[in-house]
């Protein structure tokens, strides 16, 4: 196999798959990226055995393929070399007998040893499942606004992934760690009226978020064979599904709320960041005291205390809520309106922040 292309194009594709290269110690071949070419396309593929990624090196008019074939190269090493090579054309020549690749860029030449390409794992596929189309821009925004709320530690429920749900032309991503929940809805193109519902590892969506191109690009989603697949013209991501059941999240999203306050997003954001400076690690909590005159946020720990008054549109009875400031800050980081509305139903009930099709629910910290 022999080809030449722009260093930037190849480097970008290697970086795209690098996140799913298996960590050291499993088997040397899993630490590699597989490079395959036919007459006019060049594709990179990697897998960590849970998620597989497949990225086309583009654009084809900057690509010259002299001899199609398949090679397997240690991924980290290839990325490191490409990073150091100067901009401009690079040429790649794989000697199958010696299992050695010669890489040249500028006046620098490298020879890298690879393992036997036959051992490279197959990436499973979804079979002939029906596909649903969504724009890359929509999908990206949905991932950005939900993935952060997924559980980072192992939990009782299957919370280490995002629930994806498609009904008719509505697509929904939901993430929760049991203390807060983020839900984003959008529309999709679903000509086959397919119903999709699965829990996909958070990492799968994060990889997708990194690898997707322009907002107008179409992403095709499907589920089959116990796997989830997202593909565009240049990229395919296949992920194993998270087993287990997702909690009945609809039950915890309050529909109508008795209390509601309008607060400037930026003002609340900076006030909460300041309050976080004096919360203790063991008990992260800020108090939000709402009165007709405004909102007082405060925090206290054994080390000190802080308090700040901010303007707020609120005309209910006096209320004091406690929240982990990080949970509120996370949401303020992904909504975009100048003013946010925080709604709740009295003591011990969750707080709700909504913006268009976006819903964020966060449980309070008890102040008693």
């Amino acid at each position: 196999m022999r080809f030449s292309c722009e260093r930037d194009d190849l480097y970008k594709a290697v970086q795209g798959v690098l996140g799913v290269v298996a960590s050291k110690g499993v088997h040397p071949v899993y630490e590699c990226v597989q490079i395959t070419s036919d007459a006019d396309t060049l594709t990179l593929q990697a897998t960590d055995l849970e998620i597989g990624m497949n990225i086309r090196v583009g654009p084809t008019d900057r690509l010259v393929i002299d001899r199609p074939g398949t090679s397997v190269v240690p991924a980290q090493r290839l990325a490191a070399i490409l990073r150091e090579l100067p901009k401009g054309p690079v040429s790649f020549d794989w000697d199958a007998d010696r299992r050695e690749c010669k890489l040249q860029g500028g006046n620098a030449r490298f020879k890298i040893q690879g393992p036997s390409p036959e051992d490279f794992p197959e990436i499973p596929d979804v079979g002939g499942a029906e596909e649903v189309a969504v724009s890359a821009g929509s999908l990206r925004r949905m991932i950005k606004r939900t993935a952060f709320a997924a559980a980072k530690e192992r939990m009782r429920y299957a919370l280490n992934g995002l629930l994806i749900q498609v009904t008719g032309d509505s697509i929904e991503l939901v993430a929760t760690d049991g203390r807060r929940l983020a839900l984003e809805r959008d529309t999709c193109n679903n000509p086959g009226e397919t119903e999709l519902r699965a829990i996909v590892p958070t990492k799968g969506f994060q990889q997708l978020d990194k690898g997707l191109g322009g907002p107008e690009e179409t992403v095709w989603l499907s589920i089959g064979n116990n796997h989830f697949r997202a593909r565009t013209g240049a990229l395919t991501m296949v992920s194993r599904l998270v087993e287990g059941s997702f909690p009945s999240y609809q039950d915890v999203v309050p529909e109508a709320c008795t209390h509601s306050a309008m607060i400037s997003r930026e003002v609340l954001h900076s006030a909460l960041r300041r309050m976080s400076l004096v919360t203790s690690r063991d008990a992260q909590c800020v108090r939000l005291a709402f009165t007709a005159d405004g909102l007082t946020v405060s925090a206290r720990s054994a080390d000190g205390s802080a308090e700040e008054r901010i303007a707020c549109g609120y005309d209910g009875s006096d209320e004091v809520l406690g929240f982990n400031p990080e949970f509120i800050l996370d949401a303020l980081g992904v909504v975009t309106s100048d003013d946010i509305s925080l709604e709740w139903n009295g003591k011990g009930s969750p707080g709700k922040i909504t913006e268009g099709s976006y819903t964020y629910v966060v449980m309070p910290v008890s102040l008693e």
Partner: protein
Amino acid sequence: MERVILHVDMDAFYASVEQRDFPELRGRPVLVGHDGRRGVVAAASYEARTFGCRSAMPISVAKRLCPHAVIQPGRMQAYVRESKRIFEIFEDTAPVVEPLSIDEAFLDLSGTQRLLGDPVEVARDLRRRVRAKTDLTASIGVAPNKFLAKLASDMDKPDGLTVMRPETLLATLDPLPIRRMWGVGPAAAERLGAAGVHTFGDARAMERADLERRWGRLGTALYRLSRGLDERPVQRDGGAKSISQECTFGVDLEDPQAVRDVLIRQAENVAGRLRRHSLRARTVTVKIRFGFFETITRSHTLARPSDATREIQTTARELFDTWAARDFQPVRLIGVGSGRLQEGAGQLGLFEAPADVRDRRLDALVDGIRGRFGKDAIQRGKAGD
């Protein structure tokens, strides 16, 4: 800078709450405490005090002194609720508040004159507000340090305000019995008395070197406190560091199950006390003494802070069983402790497991029954069996 410290002490707190809530008790001697063979007076109203009744006295003794006293079983929840309201007023008054107990605190007003005005006026206003909001009275001592403030609050009880003035300080201190000095317990008082030191004045008359040579660090304290000197700062966060209960047996218990029964009961009480104080524990500790006064402790850190009876019982029991399975010996003392306490229920969850909800309801039910009918009104069967 001259410091200004307030010591605020509610007057016969539990008894006053009872008299306030039950008008028929007003003007009558009231004792709060468990009316049983080993019951102890938790609080005595001023009417009962005139008969010589004091807190920490066995109920049986108090009843002999004042046979017509009304004995109230005590409603901890009501006292805690009242305490919260009082401490809110404290927090509202001074920048630094150091709680000493449920009804007593130090307030540091140093450097607030320009902002808050004359400290004596602040103290008067504080008393007025406590009275207006709770219908209870407090006694306050105003002084340049904690030691003197505490002495002062006690000088005009109930419903008094005493200011320690520098010009009359020594005349006030000198005649006080040495037992009133901080750090002088009955044993030390006896030793000092034997050496002729009966009052503050006696201590002040002695050379510092002499005091220190005879009594070491206590000597240093005698020298300083007899002159009304005390540098200790008023500190926030004097809160409980642990809640525990232990029991020493008259004879060593040879049956592990008998020890386990006591342990389970103790765990239930510890969990109940955590809930009463709105605290949750991160660690559960079991203390075991056996043989020739050998004592061991075994601890476990919980996945998340808990005040649930079942969780604390199960953890304590497992700790004990692990020890008993390999090393059991007849047990002299057993105890259950909870540590790394944090206030409040903490972060609430969106999806609670049904078992947790059931446990919490059961705990609340038991707490409610005990609050109304006393601690012995209800207890669990052998949990976990």
